């Protein structure tokens, strides 16, 4: 079947790109860039093909695309891929964002171009791997490998404090994933090392509700213990409140394209992990901890927003806004209702597009100003009057900003509304408080906008040029996505609803 290998094609296409980049001579930068672009375009096209062939009525994994090849048969480790309604939007998002990132890096990256594009493509492959993997071991491998390109991409091409940020990112994530690994192995042995012991799907369904483990002489519920482990692993990636401090550093220091990837795709892997792994495998514990998760999500929303308000570095501000927005996703997940979880998945997609826009825009601005201060450390205005100076830029910025604010008609609204609808059914107080997150969310963005774009033109700003054609070109797809899915979310919702529904009904039985 031609279709059945599609996932492998998508997964390995960027790897092909890496090979190609490596084989090219170092100084032929245009070749390298073009090759990377062609590669990502093909990949994106393949994801669209996947989307077209997607059977919306089928809940769970699409049987047409499943791949299962023994990898290490002795330990029942398989090369097992699959795609369902939850990973499908993420796949498209990944394909899209990487393509745009290549374009964005076209002029912004000036040193070690070959290595940069090779690592970027490697990263793409790993991200696809995470979203496709159905074998726990494979999942973990991709989850971890991704750290390596990220580490270098932040560390080599980042801002001033890049090393610190890169190491912090690495250590944080590594810490989380190690706990997850313990969980994975525990599951492997809890299911008697059978053929399906690494099969994420086969593990799902709450098979571990009765098991207990002994820690320091205390009997602890297996399911609760390892849910917490997995939770920490994924929560760091999201990032959920006490584990979020890597994010501002990583975002601020990373080059534009990497910030985009980080915020647009990588954060989603955390919540994707909840949906694919933590919730289906330990539904009882997820239910048990749902209040705690909801409170954490709430803290994320409010705390992230409040922190964002105080920032004077615009990129940091957006980074904190990501914390806040991912909090909504957590709220949706904690709700465990059809509306909430659908909203969460949609929010994952929508946040991916809107925050990517914001980071791209900041990157474009940075190309001109070489600083990112809203208010400089000496108290003077960093920008001011950008609206007058850069009209096109401003309009696109407004679209991105309002999308990220959740203005109805743009993408953020529907997902947030669904999340609220979902969470309200379970946690009234949290809903009430979280709604104020929307308020603060609007406040910090508008305040930032006011300080940067309104008023008379800063002398410094007068030298800036408006966006180039290339820059406009890679912003357009995101603008379209933000607007189209704001008005007509069905294309995304339809593919996810069957899978989400299945998950929610599983949760409902516990």
């Amino acid at each position, binding site marked *: 079947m031609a279709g059945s290998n599609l996932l492998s094609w998508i997964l390995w296409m960027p790897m092909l790109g890496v090979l190609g980049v490596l084989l090219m001579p170092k100084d032929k930068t245009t070749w390298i860039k073009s090759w990377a672009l062609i590669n990502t375009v093909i990949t994106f096209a393949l994801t669209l093909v996947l989307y077209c062939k997607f059977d919306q009525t089928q809940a769970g994994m699409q049987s047409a695309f499943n791949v299962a090849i023994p990898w290490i048969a002795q330990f029942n480790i398989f090369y097992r891929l699959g795609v369902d309604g939850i990973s499908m939007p993420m796949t498209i998002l990944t394909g899209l964002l990487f393509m745009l990132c290549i374009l964005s890096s076209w002029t912004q990256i000036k040193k070690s171009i070959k290595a940069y594009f090779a690592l970027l493509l490697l990263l793409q492959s790993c991200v696809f791997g995470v979203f496709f993997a159905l074998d726990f071991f494979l999942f*973990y491998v991709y989850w971890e490998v991704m750290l390596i390109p990220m580490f270098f991409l932040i*560390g*080599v091409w980042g801002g001033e404090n890049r*090393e610190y940020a890169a*190491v912090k990112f*690495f250590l944080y994530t590594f810490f989380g994933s190690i706990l997850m690994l*313990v969980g994975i*192995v525990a599951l492997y042995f809890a299911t008697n090392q059978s053929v399906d012991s690494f099969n994420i799907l086969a593990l799902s369904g709450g098979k571990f509700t009765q098991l207990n483990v002994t*820690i320091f002489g205390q009997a602890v519920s297996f399911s609760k213990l390892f849910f917490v482990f997995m939770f920490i692993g994924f929560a760091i990636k999201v990032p959920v409140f006490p584990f979020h401090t890597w994010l501002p550093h990583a975002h601020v220091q990373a080059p534009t394209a990497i910030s985009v990837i980080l915020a647009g795709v990588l954060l989603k892997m955390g919540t994707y992990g909840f949906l694919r792994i933590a919730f289906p495998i330990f539904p009882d514990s997820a239910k048990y901890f749902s209040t705690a998760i909801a409170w954490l999500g709430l803290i994320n929303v409010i705390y992230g927003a409040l922190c964002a308000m105080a920032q004077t570095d615009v990129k940091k501000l957006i980074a904190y806004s990501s914390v806040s927005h991912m909090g909504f996703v957590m709220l949706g997940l904690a709700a465990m209702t059809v509306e909430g979880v659908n909203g969460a998945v949609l929010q994952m997609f929508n946040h991916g597009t809107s925050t990517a826009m914001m980071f791209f825009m900041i990157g474009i601005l940075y190309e001109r100003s070489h600083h990112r201060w809203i208010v400089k450390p000496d108290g003077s205005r960093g920008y001011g009057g950008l609206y007058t100076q850069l009209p096109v830029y401003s309009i696109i910025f407004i679209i991105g900003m309002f999308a990220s604010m959740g203005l109805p008609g743009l993408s953020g609204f529907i997902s947030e509304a669904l999340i609220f609808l979902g969470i309200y059914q379970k946690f009234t107080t949290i809903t009430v408080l979280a709604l104020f997150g929307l308020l603060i969310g609007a406040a910090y963005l508008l305040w930032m906008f006011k300080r940067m774009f309104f008023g008379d033109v800063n002398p410094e700003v007068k030298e800036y040029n408006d966006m180039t054609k290339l820059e406009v070109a890679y912003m357009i797809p995101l603008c379209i996505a933000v607007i189209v899915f704001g008005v007509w979310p069905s294309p995304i919702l339809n593919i996810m609803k069957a899978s989400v529904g299945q998950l929610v009904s599983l949760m409902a039985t516990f």
Partner: protein
Amino acid sequence: MHLNYLANIGRYIPEILLVILMVGLILIEATYKEDEKDRRYIFITAIIGLVATFVAILFNMGGKPQAIFTNSIVIDDFSSLLKLIMVLGTIAVVYLSRFSKDIYETLKTEFVIMAVGILIGGFLLASANNMLTLYLGIETLSILSYVMASLKKNDERSSEAGLKYALYGGVSAGIMLFGLSHIFGVLGTIQFTGVAAMIPNLTTVQMAILMPSFVLFFAGIGYKIAAVPFHMWSPDVYEGSPTPVTTFFAIVPKIAGIAVLIRVTSVFFTVESPMKVGWIGLMLVVSALTMTVGNVTAIGQKSVKRMLAYSSISHAGIMMASLVMIGDVGIRAVLFYAITYLFMTLVAFYITSIVQDKYGNDHFDRFSGLIYRYPWMAVMMTVVMFSLTGIPPLAGFVAKYNILSSLINSKFYTLAVILGLNSVVSAYYYLKIVRLMVLKQPESEEAIEGFGFLNQMIIVVMTLPIFVLGIFWETIMSFANVSKLFIN
């Protein structure tokens, strides 16, 4: 006269080969004048001899476990595999010493002789089946190591290293013997064979003697593998010794020590008894401490060699962790770990040694911007560092994964988590090198002579297994699986 006690000596050929090699080397060495610089025949002979040993061990593999020399020695696949690793390590170290500037040219022959001697000790340890052989093995390892550590005769630090090693080793050996003597007193035999059956029948009083004695006994082994708190000599010695010696110390004595620890554990503590619980508790604590102490101390180091020394302590701790679970999974895991550990250590030390030869010291800063000068080497070092950290899909990850899974299989969740968290801590200092190599600008543009084409090729070849074992580890695991067939 029937030489019963010499029966099956055919399986002892590898060791015999080594002894012959050692004597031969001494003879060849005698033919050189004192100030003769180029002593290539020593190296050629050594490598040929070692390869022959390697082949001989390979021939030995697959046979049934067999105790020879009246139960002095047991030849089984487990020990053979570890011996293979030790031989490989020795070959690599001998080659490293060939071009290393850290050893005086005129003493390189002695280095090779000592290395072969220590290897014999390691072999003895790996196969030891009674206390005497064990003691002999440990002492062979130790005494020759003292010499090796202080081989850089004009260097105070090297002498100091040897001195510390000797003093510490003496005390540890004494303590171990004291423990052994009481074990002998209780069990009435120095043989390992058949002891397992005696353990459950012991009286409480006997048990009360035996267990502390085992702790004392463990001091001797622990000192060899540098388990906490017997590790304290190791960073000093590793730092003070010439780099090839350090490399050698990081591989052969450690692996031999792990081998004997596994042997002891499987001999004395296979049967369920209060003693087994106590022993495993000891192993738990020691391995957790070893990993943690090794990692935590490694963080602040300025010298790469010293950092690697501490890191090797923590790796020993991780290998020990699998001891808490003696069974196929644990043994398999530790074997696999030893294999990957060999390659990772070798590559790391090769590169460190070459860099050190160029600059005269091995501070972290010397690695700055290596990627701009020797991209391949920097990439290989990076790969090794990530592998040591335990990032998939590199071999280091699979190795750690196996240990972890053996731990979890026997429900030692706490230790598993400690192991995991230690990986995170270790990531910090491993990343430090990576950070310097990749993210910093080079200090100078001078060429490093050590990175000739051949050496680079060798390093790359040694790195390859790290990749291959990381992805296609099934074969090697089955291989390790075979060797879990054990004595008893």
